[in-house]
């Protein structure tokens, strides 16, 4: 454990688990960054009402992550998106009498992976329970879930806030992670109105698809923090390869609980649940709207109008609307699932899984920071594990870090976006990019030429050298050759030469342009300017 400096985080009365662990890892950070680890500073974002009273928002998030396994949680039906309705069903997931569930070993593996990535305590023995309620998309009349003995609890997640919103590091607690199954899909013909069709349609392809539910501690204080928490969770599941975490597709769903209280008051305010947010930005806007709504009511003495209920985010009108009242806590009559034995893990299994984990986003960000990259660059490069892997390979060849970062985030990204391709889908190899950067560095070609030939490398997989030779693009750095070119241009443009020597020094650019035109842009710019100036000024 590093003890480089006295850490404020450790001195606080109730050190958050994040503080202790991350402090040990990152004690090299400046004291300014350190103070951000303090839990107190995390809740420094308060809402100031019109009359000057300060309120604090308390936000908790429940996330359901759909796992990318080949089969469902409790049966061997294929788990596939976009198939014909009710194509992938069997007696188990249709809830037909006599069918028995059998747990998919990949679900356990993915659960352990996520639990470890969230630094949580893993229950070596956990169990399943039946959560009972009636709804048309729930064939068995109960959902197999984990109630009081989940697979993991007491973890945390590290989040870096975007630079354009002020930056900063946050550490949010994770209450628990548990395994459960998804319900089918219910389609309401005739919309959500009571009039119109009196029937609905059910597709059970999704029934039984494995989910991991992640419950956060209510430690977020703003819409931004909540959105970044969700983004980091998405980044995590993608890094781990356990889900594509797509909010739009529904493979990651977030339900948010928001309440407000006057700053400093320990008791929580009335909790309101918000559903129906399909993107991180929608989450942020919905939460900020709801905080505003609640603070306004509280401040006007109408706090009693804040009901414990579920509200829907309406994207069109950009507001939350009441869905129905949550009449107290739901009674799901949980009892242990008799058809499933307990889930037993050995410490060896857990350790082996831990050893197999890839470098996680937070660790990657800290490593990139230590390479000297700006936070802005770090956040972009570490966002996608494929991009980060590509970057790591390029710098692994000894390429200059900043150059590699710029090429990947600039020209390479722009090309990929235009062609709608992922970095793994181009023919450009990290070695080829490293070579390109090196050729520019040693002067064989100019940066401009490098940009010109990059598409060739991307599309056809040729090496930089091959492209340069094929097009005869190598940089002209032979002083004699440049001199003869400059002499020719000077001879062809006596008027401009006279004007330049008469005081219009801005015409230097004109001569540079002419030489570049003649040489196909291949002349070494620095040398050209040197030779040109010496000839013009003699």
């Amino acid at each position, binding site marked *: 454990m590093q003890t480089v400096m006295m850490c404020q985080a450790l001195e606080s009365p109730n050190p958050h688990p994040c503080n202790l662990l991350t402090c040990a890892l990152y004690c090299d950070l400046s004291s300014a960054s350190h103070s951000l680890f303090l839990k107190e500073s995390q809740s420094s974002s308060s809402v100031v009402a019109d009359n000057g009273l300060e309120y604090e928002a308390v936000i908790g998030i429940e996330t359901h992550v759909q796992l990318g*396994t080949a089969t469902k949680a409790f049966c061997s039906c294929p788990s596939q998106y976009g198939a014909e309705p009710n194509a992938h069903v069997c007696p188990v997931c249709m809830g037909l009498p006599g069918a028995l569930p059998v747990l*998919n*070993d990949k679900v356990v593996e993915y659960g352990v992976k996520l639990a470890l990535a969230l630094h949580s305590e893993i229950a070596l023995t956990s169990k399943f329970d039946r959560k009972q*309620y009636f709804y048309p998309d729930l064939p068995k009349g109960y959902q197999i879930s984990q109630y009081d003995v989940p697979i993991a609890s007491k973890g945390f997640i590290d989040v870096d806030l975007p630079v354009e919103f002020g930056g900063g590091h946050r550490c949010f607690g994770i209450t628990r992670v548990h395994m459960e199954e998804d319900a089918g899909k219910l389609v309401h013909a005739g919309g959500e109105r009571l009039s119109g069709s009196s029937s609905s349609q059910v597709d059970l392809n999704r029934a039984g698809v494995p989910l991991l539910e992640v419950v956060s501690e209510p430690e977020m204080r703003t819409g931004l923090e909540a959105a970044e928490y969700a983004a980091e969770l998405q980044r995590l599941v993608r890094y781990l390869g356990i889900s594509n975490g797509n909010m739009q597709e529904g493979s990651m769903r977030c339900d948010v609980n928001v309440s407000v209280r006057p700053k400093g008051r320990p008791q929580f305010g009335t909790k309101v649940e918000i559903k129906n947010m399909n993107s991180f930005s929608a989450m942020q806007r919905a939460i900020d709207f709801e905080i505003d709504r609640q603070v306004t009511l509280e401040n006007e003495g109408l706090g009693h109008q804040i009901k414990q209920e579920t509200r829907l985010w309406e994207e069109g009108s950009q507001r939350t609307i009441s869905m129905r009242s949550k009449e107290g806590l739901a009674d799901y009559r949980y009892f242990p699932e008799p058809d499933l034995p307990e889930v037993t893990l050995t410490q060896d299994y857990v350790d082996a899984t831990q050893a197999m984990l890839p470098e996680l986003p937070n660790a990657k960000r800290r490593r990139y920071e230590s390479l000297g990259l700006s936070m802005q660059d770090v956040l972009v490069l570490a966002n996608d594990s494929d991009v980060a892997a590509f970057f790591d390979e390029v710098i692994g060849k000894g390429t200059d870090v900043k150059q590699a970062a710029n090429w990947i985030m600039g020209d390479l990204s722009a090309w990929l976006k235009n062609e709608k391709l992922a970095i793994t889908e181009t023919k450009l190899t990290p070695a080829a990019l490293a070579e390109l950067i090196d050729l520019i560095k040693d002067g064989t070609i100019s940066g401009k030429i490098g940009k010109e030939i990059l598409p060739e490398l991307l599309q056809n997989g040729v090496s930089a050298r091959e492209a340069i030779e094929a097009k005869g693009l190598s940089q002209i750095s032979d002083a004699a050759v440049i001199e003869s070119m400059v002499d020719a241009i000077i001879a062809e443009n006596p008027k401009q030469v006279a004007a330049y020597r008469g005081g219009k020094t801005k015409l230097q650019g004109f001569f540079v342009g002419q030489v570049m035109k003649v040489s196909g842009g291949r002349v070494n710019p620095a040398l050209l300017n040197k030779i040109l100036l010496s000839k013009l000024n003699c």
Partner: protein
Amino acid sequence: MAALLHHLPYQSMLTTSLRISVAGIPTKRAAMSTCMASKVEPPNIAHLCEKARLSLTPQEVEEFEPQIGRIVDWFAQLQEIDVADVAPAIHVGDVNGINTLRSDKPNVFPNRKAMMGAVPELEGSFIKVPKILKENQE
């Protein structure tokens, strides 16, 4: 009830020495003697019926309530057992050493036609159901 049975460590089931009538319902006398043990509250029948979507006539409720009460009391004898030194059994029936997990390999169920054929009403390939807007009806 089946679920409750799964909670009992096997040995303690054998120590119960209550005389049970042929129908399986404990005799009234036996039930009374256990009333003094730490009481397990009988379920609210009306509430339970609503949760489980069962409809009982008022007559049936009157008839069943005491019978259910006696069954609960019979099980409540377990409260007398001192389990201070017993580790909680998470689930009886764990299979020692036998892998109870399934590998993640797809297997299409061969008789989908028969299952879908048994669905009361289909609309295209969807299952047609009455429209219920209230989510998560318990």
